[in-house]
């Protein structure tokens, strides 16, 4: 890499961080056992596209539980499903936007994968061997998202300054959206109270 290229990258990073802010806040989930697992994300940004990441996302099946329970990904992301148990597991989705895929079953330590193409798709993941197991993939069209912690806190970092629609998605509670102005530096606080 030439010295010029290195300088360009440094300038680009410095510039982009200089004009990017953070969105943070708290989610209060009414009528739910905790305030975690809500996905706060920026709605579609007109005129902007984001290339699918080459790196695969991962969802584990461990002790009869999908980990994580909620996995937001950028459209075009491949998710690898690992079986970490000494029992057979399966992954399928009954949702059309995920082509009702069914990956069959595979031994401990191995993975099978699925590519999530369509943004705006929130397919449920199920295991037809253990019907209590459930997880969600939240497919988004930009990388500005966060999953709330159990206490409801969330933070989306390094968002380019500008005006956006900020949305919240929850597996059981109603979605909401608010307009948000992200400053060039610092952060903006947006709290949500979601309910059934």
């Amino acid at each position, binding site marked *: 890499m030439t010295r010029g290229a290195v300088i360009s990258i440094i300038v680009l990073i410095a510039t982009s961080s200089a004009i990017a802010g953070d969105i943070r806040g708290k989610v209060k989930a009414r009528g739910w056992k905790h305030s975690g697992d809500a996905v706060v994300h920026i709605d579609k940004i007109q005129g902007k596209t984001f290339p699918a990441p080459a790196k695969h996302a991962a969802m584990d099946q461990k*002790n*009869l539980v999908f980990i994580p329970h909620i996995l937001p990904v950028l459209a075009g992301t491949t998710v690898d499903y690992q*079986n970490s*148990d*000494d*029992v*057979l597991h*399966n992954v399928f989705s009954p949702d059309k936007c995920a082509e009702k895929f*069914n990956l*069959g*079953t*595979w*031994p*401990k330590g*191995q993975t099978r994968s699925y590519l999530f193409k369509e943004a705006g798709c929130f397919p449920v993941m199920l295991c*037809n*061997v*253990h*019907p*209590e197991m459930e997880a969600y993939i939240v497919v988004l069209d930009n990388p500005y998202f966060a999953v709330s912690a159990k206490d409801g806190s969330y933070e989306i970092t390094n968002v380019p300054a500008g005006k956006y629609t900020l949305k919240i998605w929850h597996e059981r509670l109603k979605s909401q959206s608010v307009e948000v102005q992200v400053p060039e530096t610092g952060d903006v606080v947006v709290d949500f109270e979601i309910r059934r």
Partner: protein
Amino acid sequence: MKRVIVGFLATASLMLLFTEESYGIPAFSRKYRTSCSTCHYAAPMLNAFGKAFKNNGYRYPAGTDPEMTKEEPVSLGSEAYKKVWPNAIWPSDIPGTSPVSVWAVGRINYAAMSTVKWEFEIPHEVEILYAGTMGEEFSFFGEVEIENEANATEIAFPFALQYDMSPGLHVRMGMVHADPTPNHLKLTRNHYNMASFRSRNGWRFRDEHVGLEVWGAGNGSGERGGFTYRLGVVNGQGLSDMNRDKDYYAKATYKIGGLGEVGGTEGAGSDVSDFFLDDNVTLGAFVYSGTASKTGVLDENFSIVGGDVDFWYKRFILNGAIMLMDSRITGTPQRKSMVYYAQANAVLYPWLIGLIRYEWEDQNTDLDAVKPVNAVIPGITLMARANVKLMFEFKKFFDEDSKKKDTFGIQVNFGF
């Protein structure tokens, strides 16, 4: 009120009844935070994993039980006490919450020959079940069963304590598995004819047999399929033996293909899966030798040999079993009997199973005067929820003597 209570007590005769161990245990659902269908094809019938769980002494396979257990057990001594033994009691644990479940059964019956053709027998039976593990080497299974039998109340309270040295070697005491009919396959409310067939002095497989049993299981090559065996010595009849002779039995099976008998996932990749699928064929053979006693008659010595086949392919199961009984009572002609059945199940949906069974029972194969009993049992099992089951079942007899004994029944079971 007092008269009602006295009347009830007077009419409710408390009798001892023996039962088979074949029920779903919701306490395991709580312990592992998992659905009934993890272990059951349609409770109480076990699926492949349920059999592997049982073969591991009611534990998850491959030593993973501690990490799969979601309810923290109560320690009865820390692990380090193993170093102190014999100067301390060997450490163990008990379930973190009470391992008790309830299984309730109600019936609507139709009997063609009965004076009262239709009846609502709700409840037919209530079971209080308990099962679990105690430390790494002991497990237990028991029940208190209260059942209506023609307005008399029957009570049974069998249990088994098991020492689980390894999946390949368990020692069981109490309620054992002398009945060779594969009870994990019993999807119907009607018992298997083989289980209900009586010897001349009234002995039958279906009655619970109490004694000692050594049994075990192991995976086959490539960790698929595998073997099971059991050897036992039992009273034969009753909690207090009715004669001085003990009964002996043995059964062995070999499973070709499918999930390993003790579980594991090696070589188990497939493009399809479901909790009720396990393509395999299992072959079994058994022997039983016993003495049956009845008041006022001479003892009966009998021996039984038999075999069974169990074939699972996609959504279908075909299975059948046959037994040949040879009965000897001094001063009477030897009696030879043959009993068999064949059954087919099809999973129409994971919650809807169709089945049909054909049964044949020839009490005396050398005597043409005694006609064989043969019947067909078509039925539907509907799982309204994983723990709520409805069964619709018809039993149609073909032989002349039984022709008018046809029955129809609806049964609801639920457990929690």
